[in-house]
């Protein structure tokens, strides 16, 4: 696992090479083995210097996240002890009196780079694929191996911020430019250069703080252990007063960027601020205490579970029916060359597929192809694609108005107008030329797949592939399985989604499927709040402060208010036609007012909940205040009473989505909680700090969630009515993820 060798010049080389893994990671086993090797090197009087390197293509990828996910967080004192071990080992390296060199052959992330920072010198191979950085913040954690202390002491707080707080991945060249790496050399010279640095004659002696007067070769002493150390780029080399302005600004930036929902960036800034005010070893203790606080915060585990393991499993097609041979795609058809169709064609062509992009006439089809051309040329202009590759992608897209061109397609995705008759005609015309085995998919966002499949001669091959707009940016595809859709079709559709490098979730057919339905619940709650006299700005801001990308009113303006009206109207008619009682959302009158009386349809006619001045940014329509009078204590209130309303607004906007997601699980629209979590975050931008709409319920605790929803239902209506599934789970003390070691 950790190879140890000493050469005749007294240079020890410690090589990380964990068996059975493609990447080295820091876990209990590898850390213990490394500690043994390190101790051997330090104790052996024949060893003059130590090289740290890797036997794999990359250096060390970081800590084993499974270990982090499974850690028992109940005993804070024990955790503090446990998670200070890595730091102690690293600290022992840099204060051993012997010089250490990190020979970084490839990617070194997280703890894998922190071990390099504990070396006195860092040389990297000029490997263009290598990534250097501290990505811990992206999963709600912080670099707990001394990273928050060493990086700012090495390069200054301002330069450290993007590395620590944004978790930015750096190329080797960038890391060198920032001063995180001392040298970059050709890969073949890496070890020789590391040895040469160690073998060079000593030129300077210093007396570090920890030897109490004994002098050492300056090469074996870290900058922060040298006498008269000063923090870079702070006047006077100290936080007070030289760094004060920077922290004042940093606090505001972090507060604004995280909207108060992500604890990790705040904890990192605190580690830096508090740690730089005290000696290095005390700073390490501070780092561990904040690390433990993040481990014990449900946010980090939720984010790791969904955004790391959940995403990994979804991308590996966890829901794919077994025993179906993998479908290789070469040619697919896209019907409808509008924004969605062209987007689907674009991402598919970029994944190497040949595309037949069809619309009702050649000009419309050409327009879709022009969209792709503009997009690849933009990327070529920015150096993201080579000119050749851009031409190749475009060359694979054939724009046509002739259904005969679909011949030979393995899959056809229909993205035509959202109308049953238009879709039925497209289905029939396409199937007429397709092989009997070909899949026909509809990109409908609302119409039930089972109904659309009635137009198909082979409903077993008919499936829903719901893309999100803009297709190029949105990572999710919601796969909708109709009543007659075969398992084989599902498996093959999943193969397509994997091919175009999107993340799939699988849902069963129902009105609005999963994502559109939950999105509607979110928008309706915003409508209700407006009717209650909550200021529109508070609704919108609170949505963002709860972690949503936009507020419900802005979202409604984007999807069109008249569309919401039509859906509501259709639902009401359908219910009446079926002789059922229309339950209603309680916002019918508001939609009626906006659409029928005021003709405010949303962004599409420049008049919605917002107004869209030609000369500036959109702003809330002032007329809202006339039609929906703001509650006086909110307009003119300050302090705890108003804060409590804001807190409840945030809660309602998330809970109304979470409870609807739970209903989808109960009614088997969703078959796995993880699809609800991945789907809500990747499709709707649902508050990532929660780990998703189902994970949120676990975070809150099902029993407490049920209790809170009961009280919300009493105050605000049946949208918070608790499904039996949750009530049962609460009474049994269950949770969605609690018993699982990881989401599997």
């Amino acid at each position: 696992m950790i190879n140890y060798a000493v050469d005749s010049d007294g240079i020890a080389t410690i090589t990380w090479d964990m068996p059975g893994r493609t990447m080295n990671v820091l876990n209990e086993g590898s850390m213990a083995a490394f500690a043994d090797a390190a101790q051997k090197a330090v104790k052996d009087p024949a060893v003059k210097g130590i090289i740290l390197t890797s036997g794999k293509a990359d250096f060390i990828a970081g800590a084993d996240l499974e270990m982090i996910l499974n850690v028992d967080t109940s005993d804070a004192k024990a955790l503090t002890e446990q998670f200070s071990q890595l730091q102690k080992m690293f600290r022992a390296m840099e204060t051993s009196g012997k010089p250490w060199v990190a020979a970084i052959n490839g990617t070194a992330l997280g703890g894998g780079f922190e071990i390099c920072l504990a070396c006195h010198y860092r040389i990297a191979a000029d490997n263009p694929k290598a990534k250097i950085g501290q990505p811990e913040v992206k999963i709600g954690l912080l670099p707990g191996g001394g990273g928050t202390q060493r990086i700012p002491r090495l390069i200054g707080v301002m330069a450290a911020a993007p590395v620590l707080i944004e978790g930015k991945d750096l190329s080797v060249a960038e890391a060198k430019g920032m001063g995180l790496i001392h040298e970059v050399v050709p890969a073949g010279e890496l070890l020789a250069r590391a040895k040469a640095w160690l073998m060079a004659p000593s030129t300077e002696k210093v007396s570090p703080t920890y030897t109490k007067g004994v002098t050492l070769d300056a090469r074996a002493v870290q900058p922060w252990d040298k006498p008269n150390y000063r923090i870079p780029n702070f006047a006077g080399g100290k936080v007070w007063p030289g760094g004060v302005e920077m922290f004042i600004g940093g606090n505001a930036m972090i507060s604004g960027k995280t909207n108060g929902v992500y604890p990790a960036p705040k904890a990192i800034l605190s580690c830096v601020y508090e740690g730089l005010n005290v000696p290095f070893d005390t700073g390490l203790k501070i780092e561990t205490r904040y690390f433990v606080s993040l481990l014990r915060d449900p946010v980090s585990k939720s984010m790791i579970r969904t955004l790391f393991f959940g995403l990994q499993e979804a991308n590996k097609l966890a829901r794919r029916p077994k025993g179906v041979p993998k479908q290789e795609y070469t040619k697919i058809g896209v019907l409808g060359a509008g924004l969605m169709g062209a987007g689907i064609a674009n991402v598919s062509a970029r994944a190497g597929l040949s595309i037949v992009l069809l619309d009702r006439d050649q000009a419309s089809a050409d327009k879709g192809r022009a969209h792709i051309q503009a997009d690849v040329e933009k990327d070529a202009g920015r150096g993201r694609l080579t000119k050749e590759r851009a031409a190749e992608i475009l060359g694979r897209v054939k724009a046509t108005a002739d259904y005969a061109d679909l011949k030979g397609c393995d899959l056809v995705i229909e993205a035509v107008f959202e109308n049953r008759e238009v879709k039925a005609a497209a289905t029939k015309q396409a199937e007429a030329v397709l092989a009997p085995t070909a899949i026909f998919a509809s990109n409908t966002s609302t119409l039930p797949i089972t109904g659309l499949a009635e137009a198909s001669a082979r409903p077993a091959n008919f499936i829903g592939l719901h893309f999100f707009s803009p297709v190029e940016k949105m990572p999710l595809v919601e796969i909708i399985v109709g009543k007659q859709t075969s398992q084989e079709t599902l498996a093959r559709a999943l193969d397509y989604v994997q091919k175009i490098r999107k993340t799939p979730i699988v849902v069963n057919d129902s009105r609005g499927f999963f994502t559109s339905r939950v999105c509607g619940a979110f928008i309706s709650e915003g409508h209700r709040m407006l009717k209650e006299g909550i200021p529109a700005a508070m609704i919108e801001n609170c949505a963002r402060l709860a972690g949503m990308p936009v507020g419900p009113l802005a979202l409604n303006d984007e999807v069109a208010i008249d569309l919401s009206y039509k859906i509501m109207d259709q639902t009401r008619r359908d219910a009446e036609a079926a002789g059922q009682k229309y339950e209603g959302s309680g916002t019918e009158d508001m939609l009626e007012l906006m659409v029928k009386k005021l003709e405010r349809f949303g962004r599409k006619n420049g008049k919605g909940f917002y107004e869209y001045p030609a000369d500036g940014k959109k702003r809330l329509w002032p007329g809202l205040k006339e039609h929906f009078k703001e509650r006086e204590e909110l307009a003119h209130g300050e302090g705890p009473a108003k804060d409590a309303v804001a807190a409840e607004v945030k809660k309602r906007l998330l809970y109304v989505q979470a409870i609807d997601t739970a209903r989808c699980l109960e009614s088997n629209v969703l078959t796995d909680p993880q699809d609800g979590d991945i789907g809500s975050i990747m499709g709707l931008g649902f508050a990532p700090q929660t780990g998703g709409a189902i994970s949120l319920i676990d975070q809150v605790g099902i029993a407490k969630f049920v209790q809170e929803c009961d009280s919300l239902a009493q105050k605000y209506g049946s949208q918070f009515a608790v499904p039996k599934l949750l009530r049962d789970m609460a009474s049994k003390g269950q949770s969605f993820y609690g018993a699982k070691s990881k989401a599997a």
Partner: protein
Amino acid sequence: MTEAYIYDAVRTPRGKGRRDGSLHEVTPVRLAVTALQALRDRNKLDTSLVDDVVLGCVMPIGEQGANIARTAAVMAGFEQTVAGVQINRFCASGLEATNMAAAQVMSGQSQAVIGGGVESMSRVPMGSDGGAWPVDPAVAIPMYFVPQGISADLVASKYGFSRDDVDAYSVESQKRAKAAWDAKYFKKSIVPVKDQNGVELLDHDEHMRPQTTMQSLASLEPSFKMHGEMMPGFNAVALQKYPEVEKINHVHHAGNSSGIVDGAAGILIGTKEFGEKAGLKARARIRSFASIGSEPTIMLTGPAPASEKALKRAGMSTKDIDLYELNEAFAAVVLRYMQALNIPHDKINVNGGAIAMGHPLGATGAMILGTLLDELERRGLSTGLATLCIGAGMGTATIIERV
């Protein structure tokens, strides 16, 4: 409870708080000494009757550090038995010092105490003392810290004051200050600052810009727009606490905010018996006072609840107050106060305020209380209320009644 009476109130003129200000060459100790000696000399005060000197000072470091109140009492040549204590209630320090002086008297523990304050903003600049509140991430982030200018713009945005509203208020403040100086309304309190040879350095408030008009103010750029919208983006912090506000409208600038100045003030407070012993006639009695905490991010809306608390304690209502003084930290602060308590403009800051004459942080509270007393006497009115908004969300108010 023993009654606390005001026997006298003095202040130095306010010098521009810059290197070219007339008082920049004067140390803060000498500014404070000027006020203390004036109280002694014009009242022929036997300082052995004074128990304590309470001085407000907001940047109590450097040459304003080490308890400037005690230093000033000794340097003023007061009896060595006179104690000294420096206090910091941010912008209301001068009024708080007066209230604490009154409290010592009312509680029967002191017979005479001088309250007041001093600040040389040109020599010990704002922000010199640092503090965890804006700097420490574990404090600043959960407290939603924003600088006062952002808070002032938030007050304007939330309560609906436009750039024209705040500018019009400021033009009026300049006009009133000019009229008051021209008519010598401040002469009772002003003590010119002199050098060691008795040569006068300053005898008037030198920050005033009486020629100010709506047009001249219109040319000023808002001061806090960049900090709010760009780097580092304090508006996003403010809106987390005030999500009901869509957008912060940046209306404040140097012309409608309080001026940065140097100065000191002192108020002599004592029991009835002290007055008899010292042969002094009481000018007013302290009816009540109060300090309150309010929401820290909007920060500057404390004067209304502080005033309400003081009124309630005095068994009074706003109708019972003849004149108000509210420190003009920012124009929107006064506009919000008038809106919240329904106070007409002709009863508040009738001789202008800090927008025209400046706000020497630690001293202002004592200065406006003196101004209020002078004006009540000049108009033959009875009751007045002085109040200030305060950093981190507080308010202090004092109600006096002429006797």
